[in-house]
């Protein structure tokens, strides 16, 4: 059971909030992983590889960021990969037809928002459990995407658009900046706005939240819509990175994205977790894949190693939580 006190920002004295300490532990784990990997391969601890890992982690983080918001409310969004697929395909078609990056971004984000809105309505107005509602939506959205694409791919975008995914500014990949932007915006939204506090409160204890006058339905819908919008934005970065769109573009990252959120210390029961933690979770998963590629370990082992890491991370998290409380 989750032992979650309402995470009001600590204002008393200079003491760090337990959540921040949790993230610190994870950063230490990631650093330890880096340390070990750097001994095992010379190629690991190079500027090039660090930027490479950051850029790969950014794609995973974009998917996981919106998910984090939904999981904070105690829900789950299984349709995020399918959402990215549909947003990417429609945005790509618009981009191809009009050559306008602005229009493409608008379409991608709107589609994402729309799917999020439907998810939110299913969960709040029709009271369908989020797990099932978004699973149904996953297939529904897939169906629309496949019918729209009819097996084709849309590819070859203008250089200016691709810059979002593969360009560099000051020697650092553009997606990494976008990721930091997401992180800052998301952290601001969740930690320092009333909306964010209410999301945490709903996740921690919906009944108490209702009694204290939080409009639960509206906030939940907003969370799903925001998550959908993030998926829409993510689809733009995917498009720009891969220079092509196909129906299953985000599919291979759906479960890793959920894993990143969980490894990052966000509780499935809601109310506990941070976006920064999710970023560290995405980094850890990316480091594992990167390490395996560098040491030429076959990717067959990847699901196994990921599985063990998920359970270990969450277990250690709980042990620490109990320790911190004691």
């Amino acid at each position: 059971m989750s032992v979650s006190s309402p995470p009001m920002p600590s204002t008393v004295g200079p003491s760090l909030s337990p959540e921040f300490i949790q993230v610190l532990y994870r950063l230490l784990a990631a650093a330890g992983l880096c340390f070990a990997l750097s001994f095992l391969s010379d190629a690991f601890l190079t500027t090039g590889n660090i930027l490479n890992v950051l850029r790969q982690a950014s794609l995973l983080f974009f998917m996981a960021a919106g998910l984090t918001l939904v999981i904070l409310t105690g829900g789950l969004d299984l349709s995020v990969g399918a959402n990215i697929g549909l947003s990417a395909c429609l945005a790509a078609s618009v981009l191809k037809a009009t050559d306008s990056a602005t229009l493409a971004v608008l379409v991608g984000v709107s589609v994402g928002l729309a799917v999020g809105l439907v998810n939110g309505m299913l969960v709040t107005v029709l009271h369908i459990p989020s797990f099932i509602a978004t699973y149904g939506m996953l297939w529904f959205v897939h169906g629309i995407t496949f019918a729209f694409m009819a097996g084709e791919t849309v590819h070859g975008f203008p250089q200016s658009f691709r810059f979002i995914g593969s360009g560099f500014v000051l020697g650092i990949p553009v997606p990494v900046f976008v990721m930091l932007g997401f992180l800052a915006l998301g952290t601001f939204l969740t930690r320092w706005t009333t909306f964010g506090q209410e999301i945490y409160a709903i996740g921690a204890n919906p009944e108490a939240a209702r009694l204290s006058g939080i409009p639960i339905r509206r906030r939940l819908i907003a969370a799903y819509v925001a998550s959908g919008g993030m998926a829409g934005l993510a689809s733009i970065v995917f498009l720009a990175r891969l220079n092509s769109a196909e129906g299953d573009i985000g599919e291979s990252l759906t479960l890793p994205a959920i894993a990143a959120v969980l490894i990052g210390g966000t509780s499935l029961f809601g109310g506990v977790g941070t976006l920064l933690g999710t970023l560290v979770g995405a980094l850890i998963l990316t480091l594992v894949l990167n390490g395996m590629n560098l040491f030429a370990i076959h990717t067959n082992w990847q699901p196994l190693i990921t599985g063990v890491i998920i359970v270990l991370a969450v277990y250690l998290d709980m042990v620490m939580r109990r320790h911190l409380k004691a």
Partner: protein
Amino acid sequence: MTRTTCLTAGAFLAFMLSAAHADGERVAILTTNLTNPHFQLVRAGADAAARQMKASVTHYVPSKADSLPEQMSQVEDLVIKKPDAIVFVPADYKAMVPGIEKLNAAGIPLVNVTTRLSGGKVVSFVGSNDYDLGLATGRYLLKALGGKGNVIIIEGLKGNIVSMNRVRGFTDALKEFPNVKLLASQTGNFQRLPANQVMENLLQAHAKVDGVMAANDAMASGVIEALDGAGRKALVVGINGTKEAIDAIRAGKLLATGDYGSFLQGCVATVTALRNLRGLPVRSEVVFPATLIDKSNVDRFDIPTQGRECPTWEALVR
């Protein structure tokens, strides 16, 4: 309640109308996923052939890509539906054999496309030789490298027969060039994003990569994006001859791709199925020779799918 029932009934009426336009023979086309351009071209070829020969086709594709249980269910349902003939791309060349035996027992003639089944009775096999394609594209790349340098192989799905044969072709080509060093051979699951990330990582591990052999075009595109993103240069070859690959060859990003004859595979298989039903002679095997698409002949292969027609039977089996 009544409204739901009305809606359901309405939906079914729509389905019924969409299904009931058959006049000639009814052919069921089974492919394995909705996203791979190869299967889309096979389906387009089948449609074109059916149009020409005044038959009707129905497509069956698993909703979960490459799902064995789902394709097996489709086969079992077809035993009940009894189409006049079936054109079949197996989701696995061995695991689908029990399904083929059921179709054989039901007396439904079957043409096998793309992936050669390891058992069961078929009228004909239509496809390309994946080993030859791997060998030809591999050789082409290694010759372009001047017989020296470092190369990487990006494999398809583990255990997939198409990937295994193509990679065997790549490695046999490598044996002919002893001065070329194979740096790594890792899988990209036939998908763009995994191939992209594996390549990004491999570029970090290896300072000098001169050539990459990818087991399909989607992965080759992922590799090209990885190279671009890292500001590195290497020659890349793929296999399948997709529109995307053709555009990449024109743009000078891709060295060559092995032509899989996807559209023609769909044409020949469907024509074979229909000729067999009409008592006309057919070939027990049509294997397209490994043809390379490169800068010199790219225009010849750049044909829009929309409205594309199948060649005549005589031209097809020449």
